[in-house]
């Protein structure tokens, strides 16, 4: 407490510090790297360290030249590979979101309607996978899905199939991996929304002539809309740029933008193109993020 009075004399208040620190953090670890990436995306490939041309160059003695190279962006839209990868990523993310919703809604609903004791256990079970690293869990899926993996062996032993199913390195395996990994991100916000529901509304609906499924469709579903949107965004946004899961489970045909980015960066050492891909990906996701923010704002406004 003794250092605070002198600080306040120079115009630094405790409240100001509390607000400033996270902003400083964001500035240092988000804005600065973003500006660097943006800068690289306008430069050219060079055989140097780092492998791109500088943006600013001294020309002569007293003039500083800025060289913006838009070729990287033009290249993205002329080469069908990138457009294709972008579209495919959006498709995969969308399908995964729908699958997560179909699986996650009943789970979130079940948790919200459980007794408080069971509820805590169920929530713990949802969060439990986070205690292990994502990479390990995705590797575990390889063990489950591969030709001589657990699932094939069990099915063979039971006589359901006579030769191993080809599951690993297919879109199926990729969807399994994405849905499995992102499911908690959908369940948790949806649960938080459903948990606030006044279940008496369902009784009122039934009293007024609704069968239980009609009450769900007319009352629960519209009232959980914000939870559905929030959860879906939390799956969709990161799934668009997902790299690890398609790379490990999806096989060579899984053309996703995250993977293109990786290849450009590490295999081709084309940092400028990779940066351009990253910027376009970001711009693509900004509308969704803004939508998510407005949904969140509405959600917290309605909670009051």
């Amino acid at each position, binding site marked *: 407490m003794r250092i605070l009075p002198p600080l306040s004399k120079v115009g630094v208040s405790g409240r100001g510090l509390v607000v400033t620190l996270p902003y400083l953090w964001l500035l240092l670890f988000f804005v600065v790297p973003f500006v660097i990436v943006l800068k690289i995306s306008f430069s050219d490939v060079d055989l140097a360290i780092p492998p791109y041309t500088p943006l600013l160059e001294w020309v002569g003695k007293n003039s500083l030249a800025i060289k913006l190279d838009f070729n990287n962006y033009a290249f993205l839209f002329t080469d069908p590979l990138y457009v294709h990868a972008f579209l495919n990523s959006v498709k995969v993310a969308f399908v995964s979101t729908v699958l997560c919703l179909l699986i996650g809604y009943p789970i979130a609903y079940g948790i919200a309607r459980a007794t408080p004791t069971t509820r805590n256990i169920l929530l713990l079970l949802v969060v439990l996978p986070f205690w292990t690293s994502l990479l390990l869990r995705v590797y575990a899926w390889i063990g489950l899905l591969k030709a001589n993996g657990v699932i094939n062996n069990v099915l063979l032993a039971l006589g359901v199939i006579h030769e191993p199913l080809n599951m690993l390195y297919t879109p199926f395996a990729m969807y399994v991996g994405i849905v499995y990994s992102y499911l908690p991100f959908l369940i948790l916000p949806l649960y938080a929304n459903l948990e606030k529901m006044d279940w008496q509304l369902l009784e009122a609906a039934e009293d*007024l*002539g609704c069968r239980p499924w009609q009450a769900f469709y007319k009352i629960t579903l519209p009232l959980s809309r914000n939870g559905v949107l929030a959860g879906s965004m939390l799956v969709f946004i990161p799934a668009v740029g997902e790299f690890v899961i398609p790379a490990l489970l999806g096989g060579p045909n899984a053309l996703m933008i995250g993977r293109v980015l990786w290849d450009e960066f590490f295999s081709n050492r084309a940092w400028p193109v990779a940066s351009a891909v990253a910027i376009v990906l970001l711009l693509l996701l900004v509308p969704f993020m803004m939508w998510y923010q407005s949904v969140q704002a509405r959600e917290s406004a309605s909670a009051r």
Partner: protein
Amino acid sequence: MANSGEAAKAVPWRDPNARAYVEIDRVTKSFGDFKAVDDVSLKIYKGEIFCLLGASGCGKTTLLRMLGGFEMPTSGRILIDGEDMTGVPPYERPVNMMFQSYALFPHMNVEQNVAFGLKQDGVPRGEIAERVATMLDLVKLGGFAKRRPHQLSGGQRQRVALARSLVKRPKVLLLDEPLGALDKKLREHTQFELIGLQDKLGVTFLVVTHDQEEAMTLATRIGVMDHGEIVQAGTPSEIYEFPSSKFVADFVGSVNIFEGKLLEDEPEYVRIGSEELGATIYVSHGISAAPEAVVWAAIRPEKIFMSTAPPASTGHGNDNIVRGAVQDIAYLGDLSIYLVKLPTGKVVRVTQPNTSRHAEAITWEQQVYLSWDTSSPVVVTR
């Protein structure tokens, strides 16, 4: 008042041939070992406002929920207009419920809330609009059709809930603490509105409440519940003036209860010696109790006279007269409550209307005489 027209109307509950509109027939509801409702039988007649009155946890809400179909009786059955409701789900019952929390749909406006039940029943569009408009006018919410529930005051929400549950013209309307969330002034006003509405629509009301004043104002009959049982059912005045037990006397209104023993037990009168009171109570009607039995005399505070001078004898010596000292006074404006301590240590509650603005006030520590009519005490044996 609901019961002012009683003399003119035929009273179905006194007519053994009257057909019950709602019949609760030996209904029990257990949750594990706990019997929330214990062997309750009750007949409610068409056009009644029947109030289930009891403290929280007495089983009144469970009973109401069984009528609505949200709970199924463990044993016994419920008939509504002659139809057995066993196994009939809420959405097929000819009753509607007004929930304590109102349970208005927050994502719909007033009009949509009220229209919800009619839409569900597939009533034609034009008819829905007409019935909703009529009902909103009836509850004086004509100008609020497009508002959302959160834009309404508590009283307005209550009326939307009422309109929503009445618009389907249910045979019986179930009301769970209908006025519980309103403040006192509004509550009084709404009570009379509710009675007026019920009179106009002729719907049978079954009201659950813990507020005895609410029950007294609304009800044609009250059923007092305790521990899952209906301990007494009758008109408000029957319940108040002729309580059948200490519990009912104490629960409905305030009362002074004196424990005593029967000294004389004649067909026309009884005398009760009460050590607690330090005097003998003379009651001008006979009772049925075993001789020498322990009985309780219940006397309402407003039926006790208080004076500084010795009162004229009631004609039975010193019976029904005690002395005491004023211990506490609560001035409520229209009346005052006096707590008078008797030499035995028992404190007696007396209320007196403040009829004069400049009355010679009885003050603290003053010695007073308390007396009452021979017809005032109610003698109960349990």
